């Protein structure tokens, strides 16, 4: 049984005047607009959610199940920092694959603006090792800056190369009606933005985002009840990977957990990196897209920073894969626990030819999702979607 994606939906992304549960209601309303009600088909619910510190709310499984008419199905929150969304998706896929359930709703929700910048800084720092890292005062940008500094030291990449990644992702977001930043930027603007944690500048960083996303994973019978004209999108491969909790113990220029996760997903799906037409990678910071392009096998080691270049101008050994067509975390937005599902929504639209003109990739039939949690690949989930 290869599960398929029966329906998808998201809330708006950005600073939104809705609470977490309301954002979820918006995502569910879109996903079920043209099909049966959730209570008619959904057998279980998984909720990706990073932190209770934003809304002082745990028990999101029970709460959101109640909010969409599913009080009588098993429901639980899944936690893995920014990988929570893909963890929820993976649980749904495994439930349907095994035959245990016919249809499972995977969703993610985060209300990051509730506590201001200080609240988000604090909530995100909980993802780092308490003993040596948190007590040294590290932050999310500074942790990724440690990766970026070493990458710029060891490769030919420059801050300008990282800026180009931000510019590309803004250009993609400019034609994505779901994106938080539906506007372009340029290299000068990125390079002139303030350093947050050098070499990373404000425009190298994904924003703080409120948002929710929902993906209904189903067997063929249930998926048929949501039938639309487009091709069926199958979840053909799933992979898991991890790295050390502490950054100091890692190879700073190779995201091993993401490499392992993507390989496992490729193997299950029977595809190679060169087969992948579109990839949503976890560009929480521009450096992440470079590292993930290499880990996923799209770029030779040390050349992932060329991801913003037209395929013909990239180094030999690059695939023609298009990265972050949604605008990525950088510009579509990064509602932590919802991000993994927002990635799935983008690739679903690409494969069903329902992406807006300007970002629709012609003839896309295979897509990769890489969702990471903690610093970079501390916990990583990869999915391969095919038509």
């Amino acid at each position, binding site marked *: 049984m290869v599960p398929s994606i029966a329906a998808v939906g998201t809330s708006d992304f950005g600073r939104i005047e809705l609470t977490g549960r309301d954002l979820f209601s918006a995502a569910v309303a879109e996903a079920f607009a043209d099909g049966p009600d959730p209570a008619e088909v959904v057998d279980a619910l998984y909720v990706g959610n990073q932190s209770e510190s934003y809304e002082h709310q745990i028990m999101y499984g029970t709460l959101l199940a109640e909010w969409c008419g599913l009080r009588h199905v098993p429901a639980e929150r899944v936690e893995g920092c920014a990988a929570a969304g893909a963890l929820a998706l993976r649980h749904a896929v495994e439930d349907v694959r095994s035959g245990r359930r016919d249809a499972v709703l995977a969703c993610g929700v985060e209300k990051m603006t509730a506590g201001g*910048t*200080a609240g988000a*800084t*604090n909530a995100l*720092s909980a993802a780092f090792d308490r*003993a*040596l*890292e*948190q*007590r*040294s*005062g*590290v*932050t999310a*940008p*500074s942790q990724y*800056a*440690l*990766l*970026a*500094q*070493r990458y710029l*030291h060891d490769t030919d990449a420059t801050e300008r190369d990282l800026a180009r990644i931000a510019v590309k992702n803004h250009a993609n977001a400019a034609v994505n009606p779901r994106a938080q930043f539906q506007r372009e930027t340029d290299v000068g603007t990125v390079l002139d933005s*303030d*350093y*947050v*944690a*050098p*070499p*990373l500048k404000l425009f190298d960083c994904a924003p703080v985002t409120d948002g929710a996303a929902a993906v209904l994973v189903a067997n063929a019978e249930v998926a048929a009840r949501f039938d639309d004209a487009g091709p069926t999108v199958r979840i053909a491969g799933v992979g898991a990977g991890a790295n*050390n909790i*502490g*950054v*100091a*113990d890692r190879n*700073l220029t190779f995201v091993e957990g993401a490499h392992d996760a993507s390989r496992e997903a490729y193997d299950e799906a029977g595809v190679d990196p060169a087969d992948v037409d579109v990839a949503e990678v976890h560009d929480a910071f521009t450096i992440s897209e470079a590292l993930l392009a290499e880990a996923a096998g799209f770029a030779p080691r040390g050349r992932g920073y060329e991801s913003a270049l037209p395929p013909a101008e990239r180094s030999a050994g690059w695939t023609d894969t298009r990265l972050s067509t949604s605008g990525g975390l950088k510009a579509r937005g990064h509602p932590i626990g919802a991000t993994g599902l927002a990635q799935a929504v983008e690739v679903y639209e690409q494969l069903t030819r329902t992406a807006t003109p300007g970002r629709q990739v012609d003839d896309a039939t295979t897509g990769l999702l890489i969702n990471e949690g903690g610093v970079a690949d501390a916990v990583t989930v990869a999915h391969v979607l095919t038509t």
Partner: protein
Amino acid sequence: MTDHDDTPTAPLAREDVTADSPFTLPGFFAALDAGDLLAAVCEDCDTHLLPPRPACYACGGRSLRVEPQPKTGTVVSYTEVRTPPPALEDRAPYTVAVVELDSGARLTGRLSVPYAEASIPMPVRLTARPPDDDEREMALAYEVDWPIHEFAPI
């Protein structure tokens, strides 16, 4: 299991997992407070684990010995925290670094020089001191007396 000499080794028997064992955080920080930076070293693959823990992340082995580490090493990477956690607001900006000790063990810590003066591979030395007021404020109840480690250029 406890050896006949004084070197604690993992795996620990259940009754050996105590707050004065260096394989637990209270024991690790007590040793640091007393001047010893301890790592566990894997008997099977020689990976250095800092702080010590009961199993090796590289090979899964549970035969580990505790060894005092050299306090000198070099900067592997570094950055500057400009938007700190709220409790450390008055301290920002400050420099943080990943340091590889001369033994090969690595850890993250604050670096006592401005960002512009840091570099790869700057030689540095680790020191430990009691937490300041702001650091005590962000500490959990059991962390209040744990020392703060920092690096300074040699």
